[in-house]
C-alpha cells in the first residue's frame, strides 16, 4: 500500500508540473526547462557517481555529443529532431564504451582526474570538424514556443528517474551498489565489475545526451565551448551531492533547490550572486554532508542534533 501511495504521489506531482506551461509565466517556464534539464543531468550522473561510486567529470561530454547529434542532423542534413536525438545518443554511448573501458579501471580520485580532461579534448576535436561547424558553431532551425521543450524535459526527467528507481530494486543496480561499497568484495561474489561499470557509464550517457539534444534545439545554437562545458559537469555533481547521491529523489531535489536559489540570488543581487551561491554550498557541505535526502530521513529522529553531529563528525 505504501509503495502504491508513493507511486501515485509521484504521478500527481509530475502531472501537476506538466500543467505549468498553461498557467505559468514565460519566465517560470523557461526557468523550468533549465531546472528540468539540470535535474536530468544530475539524475543521470547519479547512476555512475551516486550508485556506482565513480565520480565522473565526463558527463558534460555526453551532454555535448547529444547536442551535436541534434545540431548536425538538423542544421547540416535537414533531418528531423528525433533522428538527431538518436544520432546524439549513438555518439554518446559509443564514447562511453570507448572511454569507459580504459578509464573505469582507475579507482576513486584517479578516475575523476582521468575524466576531467575529456571535455577539453572534445572541445579541441569538435573545433576542427567541418561537419560540426568548427569553432563557429551551428545554428539550428527555430521552433517557436517553450511548451514543447518544457514537456520534453519533464518527460525525460521522469524517464531517467524511473530507470534510477528500477536500479535501486534490480539485480543490475545491486551489482552497481556492491561495486560502490567494495569493488573487490563485489568481484569475488560474482559481479562482473568491468562490464557493470561500463554499462552504467553507457546508461547514464543516454540521458545526458538526450538532455543535451533538447537543450541545443531549444537554444537553437551550439558551439564547442558551451557544448562541452566542464562547469556544467561540476553543477551536476554539486546538485546530486546536495540532494543525496545514490538516492532516487535526492538529485532532483538538489537540482530544483539549487536552481531556485541561484535564480533568486541572480535576480536580487546580481554582482555577488555567485559568492552567495558558494556560501550555500559550503553551508550544505558542513551541515548535511550526506545530502538533503539523508537530512529528510534522519531529521525526524534526531532533530537539531542532526546538524550538531554532522559538524562534530567532520571536524578536522
Amino acid at each position, binding site marked *: 500500500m505504501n509503495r502504491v501511495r508513493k507511486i501515485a504521489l509521484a504521478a500527481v506531482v509530475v502531472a501537476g508540473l506538466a500543467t505549468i506551461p498553461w498557467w505559468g509565466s514565460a519566465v517560470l517556464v523557461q526557468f523550468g526547462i533549465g531546472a528540468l534539464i539540470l535535474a536530468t543531468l544530475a539524475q543521470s550522473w547519479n547512476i555512475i557517481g551516486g550508485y556506482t561510486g565513480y565520480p565522473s567529470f565526463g558527463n558534460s561530454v555526453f551532454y555535448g555529443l547529444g547536442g551535436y547529434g541534434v545540431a548536425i542532423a538538423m542544421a547540416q542534413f535537414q533531418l528531423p529532431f528525433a533522428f538527431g536525438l538518436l544520432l546524439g545518443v549513438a555518439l554518446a554511448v559509443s564514447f562511453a564504451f570507448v572511454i569507459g573501458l580504459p578509464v573505469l579501471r582507475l579507482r576513486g580520485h584517479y578516475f575523476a582526474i582521468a575524466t576531467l580532461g575529456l571535455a577539453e579534448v572534445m572541445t579541441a576535436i569538435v573545433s576542427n570538424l567541418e561537419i560540426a561547424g568548427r569553432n563557429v558553431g551551428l545554428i539550428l532551425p527555430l521552433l517557436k514556443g517553450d511548451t514543447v521543450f518544457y514537456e520534453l524535459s519533464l518527460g525525460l526527467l521522469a524517464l531517467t528517474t524511473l530507470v534510477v528507481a528500477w536500479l535501486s*530494486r*534490480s*539485480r543490475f543496480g*545491486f*551489482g552497481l*551498489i*556492491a561495486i*560502490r*561499497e*567494495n569493488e*573487490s*568484495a*563485489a*568481484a*569475488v*561474489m*560474482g*559481479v*562482473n*565489475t*568491468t562490464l557493470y561499470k561500463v554499462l552504467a557509464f553507457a546508461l547514464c550517457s543516454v540521458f545526458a545526451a538526450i538532455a543535451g539534444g533538447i537543450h541545443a534545439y531549444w537554444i537553437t545554437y551550439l558551439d564547442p565551448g558551451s557544448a562541452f562545458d566542464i562547469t556544467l559537469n561540476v553543477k551536476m555533481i554539486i546538485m546530486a551531492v546536495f540532494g543525496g547521491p*545514490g538516492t532516487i529523489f535526492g538529485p532532483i531535489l538538489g537540482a530544483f533547490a539549487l536552481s531556485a536559489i541561484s535564480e533568486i540570488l541572480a535576480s536580487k543581487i546580481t554582482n555577488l550572486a555567485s559568492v552567495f551561491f558558494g556560501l550555500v554550498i559550503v553551508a550544505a557541505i558542513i551541515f548535511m554532508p550526506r545530502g538533503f535526502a539523508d537530512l529528510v530521513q534522519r531529521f525526524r529522529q534526531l532533530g537539531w542534533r542532526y546538524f550538531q553531529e554532522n559538524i562534530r563528525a567532520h571536524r578536522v
Partner: protein
Amino acid sequence: MDAILEVVNLTKRFHGLLAIDNVSFALERNEILGLIGPNGAGKTTIISLVSGTLNPTAGSIKFEGAPIQRLPAYRRGLLGIARTFQVMRPFPGLKVLDNVAVGALFGAAGGHARNLRDAQEKAGHWLRFVGLDHRATQRADALGGPDRKRLELAKALAMRPKLLLLDEVMAGLNHVEIEEVISVIKKVREQGISILVIEHVMKAIQSLSDRLLVLHHGEKIAEGKPETVLSNEQVIDAYLGRKRL
C-alpha cells in the same frame, strides 16, 4: 580420488618477496582442509590466488578439473568458489540483509535468486544460519567485529558455492562464539561443500579439519592428518622456534 581443487607448483612473487614458493596440494570433494602456519607464511595469499583476488606468478590451479588461474575473480565466483576476507570487506552502507542478498543475486552460476525479494528471503535464511538475523535491518557498518565475521560467512554462503575459502573467521571470537562457528562450518560441510580454512585457533582447526597443510615462508612443510602434522618436528620448529641443545 575426486579432487575439487588441484593446485600444482603455485608460485607468487611480490617484486622481491617470494610469498608462495612452488606449493602443490589437492582438496577432495566434501573435505575440510586446514591451512596453518605462522604469520606471513602465505596462507591468505593462497586463498587470494584461488579466489582470483591475486594472479599467480607461476603454477596452475584446477577447479573441478578445469584450469582457472587466468580467470577473473567474478568468473571463479560464478563457477562456485566463495571466499571470506580476513580483513572483513562488508558493503558498509547497505543493510546486513542486502549485503547477503548480493550473494544470492550473483554468486555461483549467476545467482539462484529470481528477484530482489527472493534474494532477500534467501539472505534471511543464511542470516539465521549464522545467527545474525536479529541485525538484518541494520547497516553493515554498525556491526562489531564478531558480527562482521558472521556477515562475511553469510555473504559467502548465500553464493551457494561448491568450494568455500574461509580466512580466519574465528579470530577475535570468544569460546562460545568459536563453538558456534565450528558447528556452522560442520553444517556447511554436511551440505556437500568443500572447505579450505585458515585458522589460528589451534583447537578449532584440529577438531574441524580432515587434513592439515602447513605453510612456512611460502613453502609447504607438512601435510596430512592433524595428529601427525602437529607432532612433526619441522612444524613445531616453525611455530615455536628451533630447540637448542
